C-alpha cells in the first residue's frame, strides 16, 4: 500500500508544518485564559461530526480545507473560549493550511478539541494537526478510495447489470454504514482519548493497510475477469481448416486470457505515468479501428 517509511513521513510532516506556518496569522502562542474549559458533551462532539460533512465546502488551492475545518470546530470553540481574544487566536490557528482525508477528519478534530479544552499552547496544537493530517490522508485513501469504494461499487454493479435496483441500494447502504460509523465513532474516540489516540493508531496502521491491500487486490483480480470485455472475431484460414482464434486458441489456454493480458498492458502504461486520459483516447482508437477492420 502507499505507505512511506516513518522517515519520509517526518519529512512530509515538516513540509506540512512549513506550509501551515506560511499561511498563518497567529501571533500569540498561548491563550489568555489558561483555566481548562468544561468538558464538551457527547452532543457537542456529534454536532462537530455533522458539521465535518462540509469540510470541503470552501475548498481552494491556497488553504485547501482550512475554512471547512474551522466550520466544523466553531460551535465547540465558542463553548471553550469565553473571551473574544482567545476565540480569535483559536480561529486564526485553524485558518492555516489544512488537508486530510474527509472521512477520518473527525478523529483529528476530536483530538484537537480535547487539546483546545485543556488550553494547550497553540504551537503544540498546530504540531499535532500537521503531524496527523498526512498519515490520515494516506490511510484514508487506502481504506476508502482503494478498498471500500471499489468493493461496494463492484457488488452494486454486478446486481445492477442484471437489471436489479437492489444494486444501487446495496451500494449506498454498505458504503455509508462504514462511512458514518467511522465518522461519528472516531469523533468521540478522538475526543475522549486525546493525544493518546495517536500512538494507538500508529500501531494499527500497518496491519490495517496490509489487510486492506490483500482484500483489494483479490477483488481487483476478480473484477478484471468479470468486467473487462475483449473477444476477437478473427478467423484464420490454415489450408483446409479454419481456426477461430477465440474459441480454438485463446479459450482452451485460459478463460478471460485476453482481458487479463490487455489489463496488464494498460497497467504498464499507467504505472509508467502515462495519463489515464491518453489511455482512454488510445482505447477509443483501438475499439473503432478493430470494429472497422472487423477483428473485434
Amino acid at each position, binding site marked *: 500500500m502507499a505507505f512511506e517509511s516513518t522517515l519520509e513521513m517526518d519529512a512530509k510532516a515538516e513540509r506540512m508544518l512549513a506550509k501551515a506556518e506560511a499561511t498563518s496569522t497567529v501571533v500569540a502562542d498561548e491563550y489568555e485564559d489558561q483555566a481548562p474549559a468544561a468538558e464538551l458533551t457527547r452532543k457537542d462532539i456529534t454536532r462537530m461530526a455533522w458539521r465535518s460533512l462540509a469540510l470541503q*465546502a470552501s475548498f481552494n488551492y491556497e488553504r485547501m480545507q482550512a475554512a471547512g475545518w474551522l466550520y466544523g470546530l466553531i460551535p465547540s470553540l465558542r463553548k471553550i473560549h469565553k473571551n473574544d481574544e482567545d476565540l480569535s487566536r483559536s480561529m486564526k490557528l485553524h485558518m492555516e493550511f489544512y488537508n486530510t482525508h474527509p472521512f477520518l477528519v473527525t478523529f483529528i478534530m476530536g483530538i484537537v478539541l480535547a487539546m483546545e479544552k485543556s488550553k494547550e499552547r497553540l504551537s503544540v496544537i498546530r504540531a499535532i494537526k500537521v503531524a496527523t493530517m498526512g498519515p490520515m490522508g494516506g490511510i484514508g485513501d487506502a481504506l476508502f478510495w482503494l478498498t471500500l*469504494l471499489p468493493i461496494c461499487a463492484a457488488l452494486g454493479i454486478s446486481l445492477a447489470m442484471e437489471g436489479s435496483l437492489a444494486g444501487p441500494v446495496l*451500494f449506498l447502504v454498505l458504503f455509508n454504514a462504514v462511512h458514518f460509523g467511522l465518522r461519528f465513532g472516531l469523533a468521540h474516540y478522538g475526543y475522549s482519548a486525546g493525544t493518546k489516540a495517536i500512538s494507538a493508531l500508529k500501531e494499527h496502521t500497518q496491519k490495517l493497510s496490509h489487510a*486492506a491491500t490483500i482484500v483489494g487486490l483479490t477483488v481487483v483480480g476478480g473484477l478484471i475477469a468479470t468486467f473487462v470485455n475483449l473477444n476477437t472475431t478473427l478467423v484464420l484460414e490454415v489450408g483446409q481448416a479454419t481456426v477461430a482464434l477465440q474459441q480454438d486458441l485463446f479459450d482452451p489456454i485460459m478463460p478471460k486470457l485476453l482481458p487479463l493480458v490487455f489489463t496488464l498492458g*494498460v497497467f504498464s502504461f*499507467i504505472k509508467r505515468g502515462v495519463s489515464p486520459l491518453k489511455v482512454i483516447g488510445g*482505447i477509443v482508437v483501438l475499439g473503432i479501428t478493430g470494429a472497422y477492420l472487423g477483428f473485434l
Partner: protein
Amino acid sequence: MLFEALMIALLAGIAGVDLFNGLTHMHRPLITGPIVGFILGDVQTGLITGASLELVWMGMAPLAGAQPPNVVIGGIIGVAFAILTQAEPQAAIGIAVPFAVAVQGLITLLFTAFSPVMHRCDEMAAKADWKGIDRVNYMGMSILFSFYFILAFLPIFFGAEQAQTVVEVAPEWLMSGLGVAGGLMPAIGFSMLMKIMFKQSYIPYFIVGFLAAAYLELPVIAIALVGIAIALADYFQSSRVAAQVPQQAGGVNDGI
C-alpha cells in the same frame, strides 16, 4: 424537455455538492444512472448505463489532490445521452468522457478563484467573526450547486437533438467500435487501483481473485469474502508469530 432538463440539473447540483461535501456517494453513476433514467422514463437503461460508467470511474478516486475526469457530469450526461439517443450503454462512455474532462478543468479554475476568499476569512478570524466563516462555507456550497446545475442543464437542453442526429447518421462500425472501447474502459480504473496496491508480495492474492472469477465464475461478493478470509488468516498468523517470538529462545518449534 425543459422540465426533464431542469430535473436532471437539480440532480447534478445535489450530486456535485455530494462529491466534495457529505460524501454519501449518491453522486456515483451507479446511483445517478437510475435516477436520470427515472426522469427520462427509462429506469432500466439508466441502471445498466450507470453501472457501465461506474466501472470506468471505479479506480479514479481523487487521490492526494489529483483530479480525475469529473464523475458527476460524466455519469449524468453519459446516461442522459444514452437514453435520449438510444445508443448502446457501452457507447455512452465515449460521449461522457470529453464532458467529464472539460468540467474537471473548470473545477480547477473554481478552486483557484476561491483562494482570495481565504484572506477575507483571516480578517474574520482576527475579529472572532464566526458567523462570517459559516457564511463563506454556505456560499462555497451554493456556488458548487449552481455550477453543476448549469453544466448539466446546458448540454441536455441544447444538445440532446443534435446528439440524436449524430448517432443516427454515424456509420455502424463507429458505434460498435465505441461499444468495444466501452467494454475495455474498466481496465483503466483497475490499473489505477493496481498502481497503488500492486507489490510483488501481493501477486498471489491477485491470482486467486482472477482464477476465482475466470474459472469458478464466482460473483464479486464471494471473491470479496475470499479476500477477507485470507486477510483474517494472515492477520491471526502474524499475531501468533509475534506472540511466540519471546518464547522462541529455546528453539521450540510449534510444528510449523
